[in-house]
């Protein structure tokens, strides 16, 4: 254990800080959940890519910098500390990208990773179906072979980014009559393929951030399948591991929110409830604990380890601390909490953030499912219904 950064790491931090100071937009972008804001965020992704900052851990040949996970964490700390925009590219770079690294063919890596890091292709997730939410193995949408194509029929829903994104990835039933986890394949598809209908869904905040997707005889080339036919569940679980585990929610984002919460508390200190004071202190404690844990997980992976079921502990912790921090802010704001713009005309980001934080314990596998996984796989308690 060594709690100091090397000279190289400090020089890298300085380089990131300098680039961000010169490039992060001064005025906040519109929310990426609306069409105009989405395109602003895509523009920001391309600006990041122009400085080779799209995904620093990827090999240079794919537009990355070939850096390690500690340097990635340093990048993220500076990124969120500088107040840089949310990553509209996150489904690609944090979820699908690492999955393609592990399971893709050389042709697939060359074809998909470079435009992903460059922000040229923005990805949507297509997991859930009307009858397959927490129980993802209940997927019914089919993709049956017809020569060198799959023909997809069915429906996906709660598809993040799908209202505006370019491509999608998800699980489809490729074996007729197969059940549960068997017979599923992981398929990538162009969202503009004939036969796909997107129906944007208006979310809690009023914007169409996710969509329903209807597939009507959609023909997708077989080379768009990741890993073997019928191996989709294994691949999807790896993606979900990334989602719950290390990458999707880097600590910097929460640490930045905790710092803003401390500032908010100072402004409202005279009117704050005594409980708010401890909640603000706890926001610092919990976001720091999350950061230490992430550094430990990164070190473990760098030493050849893997993320297992403990990713579930991670997901429970970050999603609930985010909700608690934003709830505390809503309470500090008092009567102003409901206002969409605050007195200075700025968007009430605490309100927007609180609404968003309510989705955290639901998506990427609800926290009830994560608690079951924790109890059964980490603690060894009997499976539900095992009697």
């Amino acid at each position, binding site marked *: 254990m060594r709690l100091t950064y090397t000279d190289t790491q400090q020089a890298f931090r300085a380089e990131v800080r300098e680039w961000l100071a010169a490039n992060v937009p001064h005025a906040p972008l519109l929310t990426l959940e609306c069409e105009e804001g989405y395109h602003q965020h895509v523009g920001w992704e391309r600006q990041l890519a122009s400085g080779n900052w799209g995904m620093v851990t990827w090999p240079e040949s794919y537009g990355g910098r070939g850096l390690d996970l500690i340097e990635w964490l340093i990048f993220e700390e500076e990124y969120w*500390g500088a107040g840089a925009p949310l990553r509209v590219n996150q489904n690609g770079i944090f979820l699908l990208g690492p999955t393609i690294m592990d399971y893709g063919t050389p042709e697939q890596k060359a074809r998909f990773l470079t435009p992903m890091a460059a922000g040229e292709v923005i990805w949507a997730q297509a997991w859930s179906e009307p009858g397959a939410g927490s129980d993802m193995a209940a997927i019914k949408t089919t993709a049956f072979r017809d020569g060198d194509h799959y023909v997809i029929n069915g429906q996906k829903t709660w598809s993040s980014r799908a209202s505006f994104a370019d491509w999608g990835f998800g699980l489809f039933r490729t074996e007729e009559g197969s059940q549960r986890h068997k017979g599923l394949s992981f398929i990538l598809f162009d969202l503009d393929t004939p036969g796909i209908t997107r129906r944007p869904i208006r979310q809690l905040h009023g914007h169409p951030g996710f969509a329903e997707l209807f597939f009507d005889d959609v023909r997708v080339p077989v080379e768009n399948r990741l890993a073997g036919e019928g191996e989709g569940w294994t691949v999807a679980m790896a993606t979900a591991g990334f989602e719950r585990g290390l990458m999707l929610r880097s600590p910097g984002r929460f640490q930045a929110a905790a710092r803003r919460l401390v500032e908010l508390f100072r402004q409202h200190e005279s009117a704050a409830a005594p409980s708010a004071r401890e909640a603000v202190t706890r926001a610092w404690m919990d976001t720091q604990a999350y950061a*230490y844990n992430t550094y430990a997980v990164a070190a473990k992976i760098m030493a050849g380890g893997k993320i297992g079921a403990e990713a579930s502990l991670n997901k429970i912790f970050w999603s609930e601390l985010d909700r608690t921090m934003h709830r505390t802010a809503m309470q500090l704001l008092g009567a102003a909490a409901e206002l969409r713009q605050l007195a200075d005309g700025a968007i009430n980001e605490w309100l927007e953030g609180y609404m968003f934080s309510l989705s955290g314990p639901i998506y990427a596998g609800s926290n009830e499912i994560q608690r079951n996984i924790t109890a059964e796989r980490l*603690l*060894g308690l009997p499976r539900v219904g095992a009697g």
Partner: protein
Amino acid sequence: MDMLIAPERLELAEAVRDYLAGTHGPDVLRRLDAGPNRDPAIWQGLVEMGLPGLLVPESHGGLGMGLLDAALIARECGRVCLAEPLVESAFVAVPWLIAQGRTADLAAIVAGEHRPVAAHAINGWVADGTGEPMASIDPLRRLTAPSGEVSDVPLLLDLGALMSAAQLVGLAEAMLDQAVDYAIIRTQFGQPVGAFQAIKHKLADVAVALEFARPVLWRAAQALDDRAASAALHVSHAKLVATDAAYLAAESAIQVHGAMGYTYEVDLHFWMKRAWALGGAWGARAFHLARIDAAVIGGTHPIGPENTFA
């Protein structure tokens, strides 16, 4: 920057864990509770592993290890609810003596013949001291009224708080294990009670609390070993989250045990009472929360993502 604990550092703690698991089971706690609370044979076993001299420099015959190693072992002591005063003496009083340059007794300490204790003003008692006995709810704790030198120096308090936090993590881990074991063997409504989600989710919450208390503890131990300027803040952080995790583990474990958990017969009570004791020792919740509050809200410590390891 490396938050991984090196495998060779874990080896000693694992050896201590194995030794204690084999020699210091619940039967020992019950035997000590029925008798004089201390057993020279148990102490001798710890001496033979070199533990009283863990933090004593090699030049004085000790193992010359650091506070992270000591915290790893203090956690193991918590896990078995060790009665002998190893942690308070060897991992709190001894480094405090060494920090003051008081090295005259180190040879006797390494040999296990001298067990120094340190009295701090924040505690109204001394553990295993020589003053008037005071009764603790923890039947294996030997508290005495302070007599002689009572310090108010922050370093001693930080050593005591850090090592209490380490024991609290071990205590909480053991209570979680006991609750899991019981939830598997106890059946009601035709199935193990651990198959019910109400039980699963309660115990999963303990696992979450522990998962995010441990790295705080290791970070605090390394920071205090480095004598980092912010070490006191990190020690307070560790003491708070370890105390909260231990209370949560204790209350969850007794609930999962049902009425059995409310009896003196089930071993859980030894761990639970030690957790209450150490949760309040060396600065209770309010003290440590106030130190964090002063740093974070008071603005004396840099916060935010760029300052993770400030």
